[in-house]
C-alpha cells in the first residue's frame, strides 16, 4: 500500500484521477476495518487539508467533511436530528475517528448519516478537476464513482427533522434507517438501497432479504417508519 500526502485539495483530486486504484483516506475506520468494502493500491491522505470543523456562515451550518461524528454529536449548532444520526454510530471509538464525509461517500445502505443529510436537503462543497463546486448532497450521492473530494456539508440553520433507526441492537446494522425534515423523507434499507423525496419514496427501493431481516419485514418497516 502506498500512501500519498497531498498539500492541497486540488492535488488530492489530481492524484485520485491519476492513480487508477486509489481512495481518499481520512479517519480510516472503513479502510482499516475487517471486511472493508474498500480495496485499493494507493491511499490519498487528506487529513492535512484542514477540512474538519463546524461553523456558521450566514444562515448555514458548515460541517467540514473530515469532522468526526463525535464532534457533530456534541455540537451546539448542528440541528438535533443530524446530531442524533451521528450519535447512532456504534461506539465512541468509532465516532472519534469516523468522519461525516467518509460515512456519506461510502453510500452504504445502512449508513448512519445518509438519510439525515438527504432529508435535510444538505449541500456539499466538493473539489473536482475543474475546481471547487457546490452541489446538492442528493446529486453527489447519486453520482456513484465520483472522484471529487468532499470538502464540506452545508445545512440550513434551524432545520428541524426526525430520525428513525430500526436495528436489532445498538451495534447491529440497521434494517431500516429513515429521516424526515420539513417534508423531505429519506430511507436507507440494508441490502436494498436508498431513496429520498416524498413520504412514500421508500417504494422505489428494491427490497431484499439479508441478515437484518426479510424483504417483507423491511418493506413493512419503511411503510410505518413515519
Amino acid at each position, binding site marked *: *500500500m502506498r*500512501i500519498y500526502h497531498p498539500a492541497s485539495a486540488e492535488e488530492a483530486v489530481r492524484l485520485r484521477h491519476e492513480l487508477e486504484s486509489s481512495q481518499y483516506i481520512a479517519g*480510516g*475506520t472503513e479502510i*482499516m*476495518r*475487517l*471486511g472493508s468494502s474498500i480495496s485499493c493500491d494507493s*491511499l490519498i*491522505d487528506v*487529513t492535512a487539508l484542514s477540512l474538519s470543523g463546524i461553523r456558521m456562515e450566514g444562515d448555514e451550518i458548515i460541517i467540514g467533511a473530515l469532522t*468526526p461524528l*463525535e464532534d457533530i454529536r456534541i455540537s451546539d449548532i448542528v440541528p438535533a436530528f443530524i446530531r442524533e444520526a451521528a450519535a447512532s454510530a*456504534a*461506539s*465512541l*471509538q*468509532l465516532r*472519534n*475517528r469516523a468522519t461525516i464525509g467518509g460515512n456519506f461517500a461510502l453510500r452504504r445502505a445502512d449508513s448512519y448519516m445518509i438519510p439525515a443529510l438527504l432529508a435535510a436537503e444538505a449541500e456539499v462543497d466538493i473539489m473536482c478537476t475543474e475546481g471547487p463546486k457546490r452541489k446538492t448532497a442528493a446529486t453527489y450521492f447519486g453520482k456513484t464513482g465520483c472522484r471529487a473530494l468532499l470538502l464540506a456539508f452545508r445545512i440550513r440553520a434551524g432545520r428541524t427533522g426526525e430520525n428513525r433507526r*430500526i436495528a*436489532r*441492537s*445498538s*451495534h*447491529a*446494522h440497521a434494517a431500516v434507517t429513515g429521516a424526515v425534515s420539513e417534508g423531505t423523507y429519506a430511507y436507507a434499507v440494508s441490502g436494498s438501497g436508498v431513496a429520498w423525496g416524498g413520504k412514500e419514496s421508500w417504494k422505489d427501493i428494491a427490497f431484499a432479504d439479508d*441478515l437484518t*431481516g*426479510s424483504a*417483507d*419485514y423491511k*418493506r*413493512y*418497516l419503511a411503510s*410505518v*417508519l413515519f
Partner: protein
Amino acid sequence: MEAKVTINGKPAVLRGREDERLRDVLYREGYTSVRDSDDAEGFAGSDTIVLDGRLVYSNLLMLYQADGRSIRTPEGLLRGRAINDVQEAMIRAGVVQSAYNAPEAALALTVLLEKNPDPSRDDIKDALSGIFIRDAGYEHYYMAVDMVKEKRKNGSISTEAAPSFRDNLMYVGKPTGKIDGEALVSGDRLFVEDKVPPHTYTMHVLRSPFAHAYVKSVDISEALKVDGVVDIFTAFNTPAIPYMQAGQGFPEPSPYDRVLINRKVRHVGDRVAAIVAADEETALKAAELVKVEYDPIEPVFTVEEAMADGAPLVHNGKVEYVSGAPDDLDEYNRSADEREEKVIYQFPLHGDIHRNIAASAHGGIGDIEKGFAEADAIVDETYQTSQVQCTPLEPHVCYGHIEGGRLVLSCSTQVPYHVRRIVAKVCEIPENKVHVIKERVGGGYGSKQDILVEDLIGYAVWKTGKPIYYRNTRAEEFYANSTRHPMRMRVKMGGKKDGTITAIYMDVRANTGPYGNHCLTVPMNASSKTLPIFRVDNMYYDLITYYTNIPPTGAYQGYGAPKGYFAIISALGELAMKLGIDPLMMAEKNIVEEGYMLEILKGLGEGREGAVVPVGSCGLREALERGAKLIDWGKKDESPDPDWKIGKGFAMIQQGSGLPGLDHSNAQVKLLTDGTILVLSGGADLGTGLDTISAKVAAEVLKVPLDIVSVVSGDTDSCMFDTGAYASSGTYFSGNASLNAAKDLSRKIIHEAALQMGEKEEDLSIEYPGEVVSKSGRRLSYWKISHDATAGDGRGQLIGTGSFTTPNFAIPYGAHFAEVAVNVKTGEIKVLKFYAIQDAGTPINPELALCQMYGAAMKSIGHTLYEDMVLDKNGKCLTTTFTDYGVPMIEEAPLDFRAELVDINDQYGPFGAKSISEIACNGAAPAIAMAIADATGVWVRSWPITGEKILRGLGKF
C-alpha cells in the same frame, strides 16, 4: 517508517511499515495490554488507546497516522506497579474477571473522569460503548465510577460491591476483590500470547469449503517448496487415532468419531491441512499452493433433514464399543465405508449412525398418560433454540514448544488435565512427556472445555520440534469452534385449574453437528436440569441427538439447561394462559422444596442409572417471592405511547454444582519456610475467581491474612489432577479440594507444633494471624514451626493434601424476572427491567458472584434477542463478525438491572457454597418470551426473538 510519538507522556519511536496496524506495532514494542479480540472489526475494544486525547481503536489506525501524535495505553495508568483509582475501583466492584480488555475499560473510564469528574449514567455508557464485556456484565462499571468519585471526595472507598455473608468468617462471603485483580487490570503479561518468544513458528489451517465431502487427495508438494515452510500435515500423513475433542472425564460420554485431520470433511471450515511456517505470510502463501481434490456429498443441516428417510450419513465408518457392544455389531458394520473414520463408544450412548443418531436417551417417573387424562388443559408446543457462540474475547489459542525432551503447551483452557490426556493420545506419547500450563483465560464460557486447537498444535510441535503459536481468527471462532447445540423441544404439559401440573413430557431433538462432542450430555441437560425443579408426579422425556453438517457444537455455559428452560417455562406460561391462571402461582404450586425426593434423577443419569437424592438446600421459593416483589408482579404497567406495550415474565431455574460421582479435584497447601502459604490447585480459574476461592478457604482454615496466601493452579506439572472447570464444578469440587488440603495442613501444623512445643495435640489450636496456641498460653508462629520443620534436623516441609469427590448434590436455584416493552408497530423490543435472584449457598466471592450473574444474564439476553449464527444453503457461516452475529453491548443492558443473592447455607459446599454463574444463563429466554407474550399476546417459540417474528405473529405483514 519511524513514527515519532509520545507514549504515556514520554517520547518514543515506533518502527514498522507505514500501513501497519498501530495495534500490532504497539504490542510488538511492548505495550502488551493493547490486545486484539476482533481482527480489526472495530468492535470489542481490546485494542482501545487514546490518541491525542480521544478514545480510538488502534487496530483501525495505520502506523503513519500516529506520527507526531500523543498516545496513551493502559500501561500509562500505572505509577510503577501501583494501579490507579479507577483500576482499584474496578477490582472492588468485581468487574475484573477474565479481564482480557479490562485495562482498556479502565483507560476509557479514566479518560472519562478526567474530562468529567461527575459523569452521568449515560456518560459512562457512552465511554464504554465500544468495549465488549462478556463475563461480568456492565452493571458494576457504574458502581466502579461511583467508588472512584467517593475516593476522590473522601480519600477512601466505603461502598461495598456486595453484601457480606457469614459474620463468623473473615474472608469467605466478603467482597475482598480477586487476588489476581491488580495483575489483570494492569494488563500484565498473563495470557498465552504474552508467552510467545520471538522467532516462534506459526500455523495456518487450510479449511474445507464444503460442508460434506470426501477428501480424495491433498497435494502439498508445491507448498512445501515455499521458503520458510517447515511441514504440512494432512489426513494422509497424520495418524488415524480416534479421539474426540470434548474435555470430559474419561471414559467420556461422547463418541470418538474423529482423527486429527479427517479424510472426510463434515462442515465448512473442517480441517484439511495444517501448515507450519516461519511466519503467517509464508503460511498463507503455501496454503494457496496446496491442491485439494474433494468428492462432495449432499449435506444435512437440520434435525429434520438428518432424520429423513434416506438422508446422507454424516458418519458411516466402522462402529466399535469399548464396553457394552450390541450382539449384532458385525452385521451393523457390514455397510461401513472404509473412507470414513471409526466411531468408538466408551459405553453405549444408544446412537445409530446409520440414521444420523449420535446418542439417545429416555426416562421418567409416574404414568404420563394418566397425568394428561387428569388435566383440565394441555399445551403441546415445539420450541426451537438457535446456534449461538461463546465469543470469548481471547479466541482459542495455543503456544507449544519442546523443552528437555517434553512437550510444553501454554494453553487458554478450562481443562488442562484433559488437554494433557488427549494431546498425549494424539501424539502417541505418555502423559509424563506432556506439560500443560493453563495461562490466564481471556474468556471460556464452555468453549475452552473442548480441546479445539491444542491437539493440532501439540502434534505439530512434537513432530517438527519447532516452537509454534496458533490463534483462531474471529471468523474461525464461529465456523471452526464449538457452539451451543441447536435444539428442537416439544413440550406437552397438562394442568388443573387450581394450578397443579399433572404431567410433563419433553421430546428433545438436538443437533450436534459434525462431531459428537457432548452429544448426550448437553441435550440431556435440557431435561435433567429442568424436570427436577418440578414437584410433579408424572414426567417423561425422550431425547435424540443427530449428526449434521453445521459448524461444530460443544459445551457452552449453562450446557443444555438454557434451552430446556426456554421450552419448559414457556410451556408453563402458555398452559397458565390457557387455564386463565397466574403463571407465578402455578410455578409456586409445583416447585420442589428441601427434602423432596428427586425420583426423576433415576432416569437422568447420562448413560447410566442416576442416583435418587433429596433436594438439599433450596432458596427457590425465596427467589420467586423476592423477584415477584421487586417487579411488582400482578401489576400491569402501561406506556403513555399506545404503540408500546409492556409485559412481565419470569423463570424459575436451577443448575448443578459439578458432577457428583464423576468429577474429582485435588489440591495441596504448602507451608513455606517463612510461614506463608502456597496453594497448588488443580482447578482451572478461567477468570471467575476460583483461585481467590482457594486462597480464601485456605486463609479461613489456617487463620492467616489473605495476602500471605498465593495460588498456583491448572499447571499439570506442579498441581494435582482436577477434572476441570466445567459443569459449575469450580467452587464445589476444586474449592472443597482446597478446603480439605488446608484442613490437612492445619492438622499437620498442630502435629508438628505439638512435637516442637512438647505439648499434646489436643491442647493446641490455631489462631489468627497464623499461630499455634496452647491451653497454657504458649504461642508458636507458623514461621517458627516451618523453619524448624525444614531445618537440618527437621521432620520435613508441611504440606496438606486434599481431594474431593462426592455423591452429594449442591443444587443452586433461582428466579429471573423481566419486564419488556414491545413496539407493536415496529417490533422494537426493550428490556426495561431484569431481576436475577439466586441461591448460591454461601457466595464465597459475593461481588464476583453478582457480576457473573449480570454477565450470564446478559449472555442469555443476547441469545434470546440478538445473537444468531446464520448459514447459507451450502453451510457457510455468514455471521463471522461480532456485528453480524450480534452480541449485546452496554446499550443493550436492561434499564433497571439487579442481581441479588438469597442467603442459603448448603450442607455440602465449602463453607456452604454452591455454584453461581451457569445457572444465570437459564432465565432470560423464558422470562423475556413470557413478558413479550404478556405484552403482545404473541408467543415466539424460537431464538432469537426478533421484532420481525413478533410483527409476523401480530399479522402485520
